[in-house]
């Protein structure tokens, strides 16, 4: 660890204070702040999902006898006896469902691990025992597992997403062909699973017509409305409680099968039902990052100026629901390309439906772009940091729309200085320390600045305290803390005197916690609420925090309550209506009236043992610029986690699939490798100050999904620099370096 390592860096310009997390004491004392810990009325029954033993085919019969005879078993639900449910739409159709296949909808099996029965018993142990005794017979067909297997169906993305348009900007083909230097390479990125430490749990109980769900959620209003719709009950009668989420990374945004299963069982039994998808079941329950193939052709002139860029992506997806992330409209905006062409395809097989996972579109596509940038820089004999700086752009080259702010070059300079990049010998295998081959690599990080409408209720009190209520979510991001800071900075109140409540669908609606949306959206709604307080108190908008504080302490009433609402630029007030219906409308990134992105630069040293081929990452430096930083402590942790996710993505993480049975092989958290403490050495984070007056009220860009983008390209280039071996197929494991 660096001598000057500071988990709570001091604020630089345009940054808030690095105060500790709002809930820090609760998190270190084991307080009941997660959905599965919340108390329920009466003695809960325990559910166990039985999942399909095949990936494709149908259930031919179910023998319940032995399972029913297990003492304590109360209920077995299958497609043969489940109550009626309405069909709901997936994200692509404007809904919140993870899949188009509804829970226990019939005997057909569409993927391995599909829930085929729910067993509920008085104890967890009895439910589990009965699950082994439920005898299900199947007629099995041969499934299609992944790329290259028999039975795949390839489609242009426009066939499944009418809004998708391939990019044709000048003649990329001619531009590349006529370039002084060019490359044409293919990359592969693997299936990955979120694997938050908190499992997918749902506890459901009914109070007359009212349904209460304790479920970790990245979108409680969305979950409320989607589950009400599926259960065919009034949304007003559904309440979702999820005060804190034990990690999500995209996996807790959708409506999965377990919610309706738990709710139906709780209704039939008249008691609370707790249902948890166990770790292995989680691999097929709530999506994953789909494996992709990427083909990149890239050219530059003799001076290193980029010419043409041609990027094609194939995403592996489900036959039932062709989920896709796309993303090439963003990579094409990164540099000063003179011509570009992109095409996106989906390839379908007999798999569970993918979903978004931390920087969904950006992780695979930016890896491919940045790996190609490194390869082309080496071919052209130009330093890869210089190569990026000389191809910087102030506009999206495809449509000429300016960036609201773009501090990429400042990030490259800051990272290079801290890392000591200058003087890097460009030759591969030029550095070693005994048996260890040493290499350096770099990449950019980027993430679109995205926003969603939000509301926030603000109560200010004469005694100098305040209260914020918004159904936003804290998935570990520090959302409660920055909400208190946003109000406190404006009102002149110490944020520690501001109570915050989130993660409950009874609160005024906030944005989905996805797409790094929350801070930008929630602080904007809080700013709007503060405007209303000013109006009610007759305080000038440009008043100082002290003047405002004085006005508050002189209020006639003991407290004043307002509800602020905010919609991002380019949306009208109907977006608030949509928010109240649990809708998801997101703006930002490329393709808006302004081009909005946060940027970073990452530099990494790797050591590859010449004899064992073990790869270590002794140090990594990341420099990031993302508008206003609300709290340098929580921001530092998000960047830290992101960089380590990047290391994991490059070197560890991959879900292996059995090609014959279309089944995940390493569906546990010991064989699905994620970085552990011993894998991580020196991590150095620089927050480059940046002011953006256009993106939203406080000038905040989302950072949760920034730092893990690009890292694998930096690491694979460092491995090439150390060994002379180009690996284009992630993750880089020992066997690929032999």
């Amino acid at each position: 660890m660096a001598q000057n390592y500071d988990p709570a860096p001091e604020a630089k310009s345009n940054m808030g204070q690095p105060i500790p997390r709002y809930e820090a004491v609760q998190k270190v004392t084991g307080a009941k702040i997660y959905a599965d810990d919340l108390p329920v009325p009466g003695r809960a029954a325990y559910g166990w999902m039985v999942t399909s033993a095949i990936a494709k085919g149908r259930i031919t019969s179910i023998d319940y006898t032995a399972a029913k005879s297990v003492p304590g078993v109360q209920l077995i639900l299958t497609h043969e006896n489940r109550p009626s449910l309405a069909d709901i739409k997936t994200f692509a159709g404007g809904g919140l469902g993870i899949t188009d296949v509804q829970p226990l909808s019939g005997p057909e099996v569409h993927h391995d691990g599909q829930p085929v029965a729910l067993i509920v018993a008085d104890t967890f142990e009895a439910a589990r025992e009965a699950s082994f005794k439920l005898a299900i017979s199947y007629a099995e067909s041969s499934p299609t597992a992944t790329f290259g297997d028999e039975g795949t169906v390839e489609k242009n993305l426009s066939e499944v997403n009418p809004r998708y348009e391939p990019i044709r900007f000048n003649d990329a083909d001619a531009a590349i062909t006529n370039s002084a230097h060019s490359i044409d390479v293919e990359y592969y990125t693997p299936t990955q699973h979120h694997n938050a430490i908190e499992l997918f749990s749902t506890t459901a109980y009914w109070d007359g017509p009212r349904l209460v769900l304790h479920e970790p959620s990245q979108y409680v209003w969305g979950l409320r409305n989607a589950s009400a719709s599926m259960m065919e009950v009034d949304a007003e009668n559904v309440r979702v409680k999820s005060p804190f989420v034990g990690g999500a990374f995209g996996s807790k945004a959708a409506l999965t099968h377990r919610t309706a299963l738990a709710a139906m069982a709780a209704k039939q039994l008249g008691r609370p039902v707790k249902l948890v998808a166990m770790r292995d079941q989680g691999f097929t329950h709530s999506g994953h990052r789909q494996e992709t193939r990427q083909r990149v052709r890239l050219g530059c002139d003799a001076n290193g100026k980029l010419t043409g860029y041609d990027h094609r992506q194939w995403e592996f997806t489900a036959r039932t629901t062709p989920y896709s992330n796309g993303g090439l409209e963003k990579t094409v905006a990164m540099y000063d390309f003179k011509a570009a062409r992109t095409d996106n395809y989906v390839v379908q097989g007999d798999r569970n439906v993918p979903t978004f996972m931390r920087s969904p579109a950006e992780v695979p596509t930016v890896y491919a772009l940045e790996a190609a940038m490194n390869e082309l820089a080496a071919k052209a004999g130009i330093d890869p940091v210089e190569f990026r700086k000389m191809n910087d752009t102030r506009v999206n080259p495809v449509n000429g729309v300016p960036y609201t702010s773009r501090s990429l070059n400042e990030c490259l300079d800051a990272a290079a200085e801290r890392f000591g990049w200058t003087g890097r010998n460009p030759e591969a295998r030029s550095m070693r320390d005994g048996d260890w081959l040493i290499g350096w690599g770099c990449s950019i990080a980027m993430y679109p600045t995205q926003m969603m409408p939000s509301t926030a209720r603000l109560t200010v009190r004469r005694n100098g305290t305040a209260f914020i209520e918004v159904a936003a979510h804290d998935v570990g991001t520090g959302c409660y803390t920055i909400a208190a800071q946003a109000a406190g900075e404006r009102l002149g109140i110490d944020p520690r005197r501001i109570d915050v409540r989130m993660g409950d669908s009874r609160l005024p609606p906030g944005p989905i916690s996805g797409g790094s949306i929350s801070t930008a959206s929630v602080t904007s709604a809080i700013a709007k609420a503060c405007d209303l307080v000013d109006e009610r108190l007759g305080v000038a908008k440009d008043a100082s925090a002290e003047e405002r504080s004085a006005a508050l302490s002189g209020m006639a009433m003991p407290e004043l309550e307002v509800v602020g609402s905010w919609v991002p630029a380019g949306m009208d007030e109907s977006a608030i209506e949509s928010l109240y219906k649990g809708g998801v409308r997101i703006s930002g990134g490329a393709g808006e009236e302004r081009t909005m992105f946060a940027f970073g630069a990452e530099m990494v040293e790797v050591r590859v043992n010449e004899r064992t081929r073990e790869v270590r990452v002794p140090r990594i430096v990341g420099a990031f610029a993302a508008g206003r930083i609300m709290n340098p402590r929580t921001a530092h942790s998000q960047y830290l986690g992101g960089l380590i996710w990047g290391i994991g993505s490059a070197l560890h993480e991959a879900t292996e699939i059995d090609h014959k049975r279309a089944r995940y092989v390493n569906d546990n958290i010991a064989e699905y490798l994620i970085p552990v403490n011993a894998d991580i050495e020196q991590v150095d984070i620089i927050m480059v100050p940046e002011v953006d007056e256009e993106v939203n009220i406080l000038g905040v860009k989302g950072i949760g999904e920034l730092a893990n983008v690009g890292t694998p390209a930096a690491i694979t280039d460092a491995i090439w620099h150390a060994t002379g071996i180009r690996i284009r197929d992630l993750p880089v494991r020992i066997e690929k370096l032999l």
Partner: protein
Amino acid sequence: MSETPDRMDFVSRRGLMKGGVAGAAILPASARAQTASSSEDADGTVPLQRMNVTLDVNGQARQLTIDTRSTLLDVLRHDLDLTGSKKGCDHGQCGACTVHIDGERRLSCLTLAAQAEGHEIVTIEGLGSENALHPMQQAFVDNDAFQCGYCTPGQIMSAVACIREGHAGSDAEIREYMSGNLCRCAAYPNIVAAVKQAKSGMEG
């Protein structure tokens, strides 16, 4: 971890499974297995086994009737309402369920509750309180050694034991001996910083 004579009779669920039926012999003498009232089914289903135990948890004797198959983690969470210990895998892979048994770190998901009888169990709820944080808890707050917080109780219980074991001599040693506790938010360098801070608090 060092072997101590007074915990030689302590066998984990993993050891029990390895040992097969012979494992039943290690149940504490005080365990009183009972057969539930429901009779054996015609097809030979084994009836539910229940037993009475007294568990010493956070300094309190807790009497309860449990399923003989229950893990200590499930009994803590389901029966004793001590939900600070977390279930992240139920397979001894993630460390989120780490508790102290006779002062040593143990995975409560791989420990049968029945086997914990007669041993001193400390969970995160017994380590410190909101108004009197253990130095390790304070160090985790000070160093932002978590994000989502779900692995945190297990990390803290492991970290306290790591210092007690004498495995916090260097950054590298802390990293190695804290690698049984996964943190998906990846707060690892902050966890190392917290262990170093608490080490002086605990030893000083």
